[in-house]
């Protein structure tokens, strides 16, 4: 279970998160939606332990992420970064199995490569991709490789930061289907940051709308489009007038 309790964060005196409360149940798939600059990525970085909140607490299971060193929870977390964040200097298979080559859980090169190829197949890429470098891959392939890296340690929790940004509609659907399938088969808890409504409907059971540093609405993803909440209505329908001000 992920518990976010009254989290505040400000940068240079400007409030980015202004008292976020949220609960993500174990085994559920939740999406946090919101406009650009709403504080979604900052919240995700706080969850990962990359930055600390000014006030409030974040806990994953029994571990308080906001107080402990990030290393304590990271072994159970997989993360798909918005820009894939693959290491340019390493071939694809080493990117996927980085955890097993350089991390604490060491594996032999042979075993690591085998696992990398298995994960590549799981995300719909063939073994020939394993020896290529990230610069040789298309945006969609990079996303898949990053997805393979995110799931390589069979994490209990997976975070997805804008998983479909910059992809064409077909690739967007492919990645969404992969995420849904992987999260279900691994029985993992998933938390996705996105502003793509169709992705939310495909991959998430629950949705929270974050706006101006606060959760303005929470509910089932199926009820998102029917919600009468003014924030949700404006966001879903892309209206320029309403409580959300475009920055």
């Amino acid at each position: 279970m992920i518990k976010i309790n009254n989290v505040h964060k400000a940068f240079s005196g400007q409030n980015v998160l202004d008292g976020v409360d949220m609960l993500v149940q174990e085994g559920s798939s939740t999406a946090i939606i919101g406009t650009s600059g709403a504080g979604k990525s900052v919240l995700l970085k706080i969850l990962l332990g990359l930055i600390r909140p000014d006030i409030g607490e974040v806990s994953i299971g029994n571990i308080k992420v906001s107080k402990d060193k990030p290393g304590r929870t990271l072994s159970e977390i997989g993360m798909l970064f918005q820009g894939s964040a693959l290491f340019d200097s390493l071939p694809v298979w080493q990117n996927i199995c980085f955890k097993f080559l350089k991390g604490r859980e060491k594996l032999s090169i042979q075993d690591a490569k085998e696992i990398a190829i298995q994960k590549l197949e799981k995300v719909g890429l063939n073994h020939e991709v394993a020896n290529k470098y990230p610069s040789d891959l298309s945006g969609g392939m990079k996303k898949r490789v990053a997805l393979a890296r995110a799931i390589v340690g069979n994490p209990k929790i997976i975070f997805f930061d804008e998983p479909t940004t910059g992809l064409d509609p077909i690739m967007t659907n492919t990645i969404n289907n992969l995420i849904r399938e992987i999260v279900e088969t691994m029985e993992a808890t998933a938390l996705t940051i996105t502003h793509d409504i169709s992705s939310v409907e495909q991959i998430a059971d629950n949705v929270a709308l974050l706006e101006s540093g606060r959760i303005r609405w929470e509910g089932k993803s199926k009820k998102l489009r029917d919600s009468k909440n003014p924030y949700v209505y404006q966001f879903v329908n892309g209206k320029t007038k309403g409580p959300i001000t475009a920055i």
Partner: protein
Amino acid sequence: MRILQNLGKSANIFLQKIGRVTKFIISIFSNLFTPPTYGGEILKAFFQIGWMSLPVLGLTALFTGGALALQIYAGGSRFNAEQVVPAIVAIGMARELGPVLGGLIVAARVASSIAAEIGTMKVTEQVDALITLSTDPIKYLAVPRVLAATLSLPVLIAIGDSIGILGGYLVGINRLDFSSSTYLASTASMLQISDISSGLVKGVFFGFIISLSGCYCGFHSSNGAEGVGKATKSAVVAACVCILAANYILTEVFFNS
């Protein structure tokens, strides 16, 4: 009043920066002697910082040694002291020009590339990715580079000194009519171990300064291409200024001892 406010603000920023650099140095040293050790990364850093700097350093030293011989000959001839050319070239290269020029050349080449590489990794979230993969970025990215630069630079400087002296020798025997044996004998008799060792000690400090500047500026670069560009520029400027300042301090120390 406003001047005082601005002064206070600048002093505050400066002290904060000093604090951040100190914290960064402490984190490098604390990661230096604790496992895991990334042997592959260390070897790669030695290759890129040490081996790949050899051509540019060698050429710089060769031309500098040659030019130095000509200048000393021109200056020495004013008071009939042309015979000091071999000794001054050797001592000048070993004590001053070899370490300083070597340091500055490597700073331009290495500090910039370290800052650009780490800065790009930071803005493309690769540094965050390292953390999520349970890898300490300081240990994985900074420690190998600092280790490689600190240990490579004295070796590079020793090679640069030799090539610089060779440059002086070639000019001496081909342009200034020195006999080969006289030139070599004069060089050998005047050059002392302390001349060489002081240059090598300087190399250790310069190597540390170069890698520290590159890593610090890379890790603290702001977002976007402009941020990486600024980080690269700052790394080279900081490394060059610190090398020259450290050179003076170390020269004072060796001079007094």
